[in-house]
């Protein structure tokens, strides 16, 4: 194996190995609007069924300019605003060529596609609005958020099952340098008819977003840091198991004595295997894994699911391992390293 994990390349060809500083967090989910609200939310308690119109877009992004947005775009726009405000950057904090946006989604387009199908079936293509017709493309949620924030550095939508939200953080970890500041996270709409085995029993798929403002950490910087982030596959296999374990064990060495472990996966068995892998990696260096249960553990908020525990841990400054596993083999890992101080 020639690959050397953990290096990051900068635009001038140099490699960087610094962490990413989390400057701001913007969560929007049923019952949660902003990081202060998330900090006091008991994530073990599911909000239960919520009304389809629970999200009041006007309260976050005003009355105008989003009538024809897909719901994932409204939620992401709200999350972007909250994250930038939390970072103290205001409305223009993401504007410009040095800022990028990376958004993971699994269900950002399902409702739009179902509506197109129904409308054309009943009225023909003339029944479609030319203003909302482009929303068939799943990237429009992130694109319209980019327009609202004037983000011209880069704009990428990821769609990997379950992992896409953490994947956005991983990609930001590598792409910081192409853009100096990146808004990364996830945004979801809700597909029609939410009671599904896919999202777990008793879990409400209601749409949500959570974005993080990320920059390369400065030397000696303190605060909440993405210390490592990577993607893997099929960690249960023989040779892969060993490599994944080695990588994970190396990644946790800088963490404190007790580490929160949050796992998102659709099945309990995969959640268990991923938690065990994290616990073993921590135990190998004398650290203790503390389970961080959340109502999103079974993927009820799609790609946003693992991001709420990450956001909460970052806000309260707890070291954490955040994992997400797809039933099809993909695994995302984010290592959060925190210090109580904040040097920014």
């Amino acid at each position, binding site marked *: *194996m020639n690959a050397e994990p953990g290096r990051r*390349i900068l635009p001038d060809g140099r490699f960087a190995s610094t962490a990413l500083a989390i400057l701001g967090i913007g969560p929007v989910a049923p019952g949660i609007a902003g990081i202060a609200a998330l900090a006091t939310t008991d994530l073990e308690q599911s909000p239960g069924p919520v009304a389809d119109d629970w999200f009041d877009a006007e309260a976050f992004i005003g009355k105008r300019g989003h009538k024809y947005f897909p719901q994932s775009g409204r939620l992401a726009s709200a999350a972007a605003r909250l994250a930038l405000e939390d970072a103290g950057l205001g409305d223009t904090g993401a504007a410009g060529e040095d800022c990028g946006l990376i958004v993971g989604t699994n269900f950002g387009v399902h409702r739009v596609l179902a509506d197109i199908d129904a409308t054309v079936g009943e009225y023909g*293509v003339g029944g479609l609005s030319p203003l909302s017709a482009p929303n068939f493309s799943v*990237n429009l949620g992130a694109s319209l958020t980019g327009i609202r924030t004037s983000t011209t550095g880069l704009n990428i939508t990821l769609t990997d099952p379950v992992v896409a939200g953490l994947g956005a953080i991983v990609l930001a970890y590598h792409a910081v340098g192409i853009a100096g500041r990146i808004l990364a996270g996830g945004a979801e709409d809700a597909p029609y008819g939410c009671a599904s085995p896919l999202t777990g029993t008793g879990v409400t798929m209601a749409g949500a977003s959570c974005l993080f403002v990320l920059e390369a950490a400065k030397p000696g910087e303190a605060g909440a840091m993405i210390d490592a982030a990577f993607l893997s596959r099929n960690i249960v296999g023989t040779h892969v198991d060993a490599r994944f374990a080695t990588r994970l064990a190396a990644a946790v060495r800088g963490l404190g004595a007790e580490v929160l472990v949050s796992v998102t996966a659709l099945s309990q068995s995969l959640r268990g295997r991923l938690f065990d892998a994290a616990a073993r990696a921590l135990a190998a260096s004398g650290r203790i894994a503390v389970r961080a249960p959340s109502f999103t553990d079974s993927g009820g908020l799609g790609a946003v699911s693992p991001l709420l525990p990450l956001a909460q841990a970052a806000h309260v400054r707890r070291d954490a391992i955040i994992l997400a596993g797809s039933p099809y083999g993909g695994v995302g890992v984010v290592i959060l390293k925190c210090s109580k101080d904040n040097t920014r």
Partner: protein
Amino acid sequence: MTGGVLVTGLGVVSSLGHDPDAVWTTLAAGEAGLPIDNVAAFAALPLRHGYYLAPAARAALSPDRAAPRASDYAVAAARQAVAHARLDIGSGVVGAVFGSGMGDAEDWRTSCQRGVSHHDFIFRTADRVSEALDLDGPSLEISTACSAGAYALAVGAMLIEAGEADAMICGGADAPSFHAVAAFNRLGALDPVACRPFDRRRIGTVFGEGAAVLVLESEAAYRARGGSGNPVRLKGFGVSCDAHHSTAPAEDAIQIERAMRDAIARAGIVPEAVRVAVPHATGTVLNDRIESMVMSRVFGEVAQQPWSLPLKGYAGHGGGMSGALSALVAVLMLQHDAVPPAAGSREPDPDCTVRLPDRLVERAGLGCAMVNAYAFGGHNISLVFAGEPSERNRP
């Protein structure tokens, strides 16, 4: 990017042919096909033709008629590319990055109509390739609409250069989607005749389908497994976003120009070194005019510009596949040191200031090629490849 990453394998499924040699034969002969109307599910749509695969060709690719179409193309092209690269999966860290505009949305739609589920994941192209090839490296699915295949290559290169993988199977795949074709009908963005980029008669695009895959590999990994010669390299990329409009490009084209110039700068070359380009060139009136305007800004007057091969005049607009197909054809042009004629652009628009070949240009002295891809939402990306004629294609 410093030395760039190597392109060590190619695979393709498209209306142009089902392997790179077949694609090159079609292009070199200037044999642009015509769109066909063969998707029964689109009967309710006024314009429904596309550069689609014939049913027999599709059946020959996969015996599993129920396999999701875009993913099926991706797996077939990925298998080709890995075989072409003679890559031993398992000898290093190998991952996959795929771009798709619609994923397997049409298969999802069919499931919904049968009452199966509204909740299935629509985008699983990268997953399915990773499953089929038993990959254990990073797997990512990118959906930046029509630029997704090109973004997949850039991200794959980034992951290799970051040390996350020794090789990445990268590409794009898309299949006919009722939702996309319906929306384009409503937007009046389809040409009822053919895809005619840079042609004065053009009035829109025409969809295509398929998958194109490039194996990207670090130089160290390639040499360590005994690789020889000097494969084409992906030397640089530039990305930007208009942040302007959901469908229309910004008329000042500042961000398109920035993506082109960044790609050239990261490749460590000057604009004059780019001798051929595969432009995005969809056949839509405004997009083609703006792209050609930027080509003039970056490369100068038409006579000074690199050759432009508007590939969609052959294969239509393959959505998320198109940027990867353009990259694959750019590699083929470098390997053959030749530029096929711009079929589909028979009456060049004088407002489109690009240099179009009207015949096969051989011994073209190419060296460097640029690929552009743009998309709904203002995603812009340019890639720069560098290489010399492969041994078997030397004159």
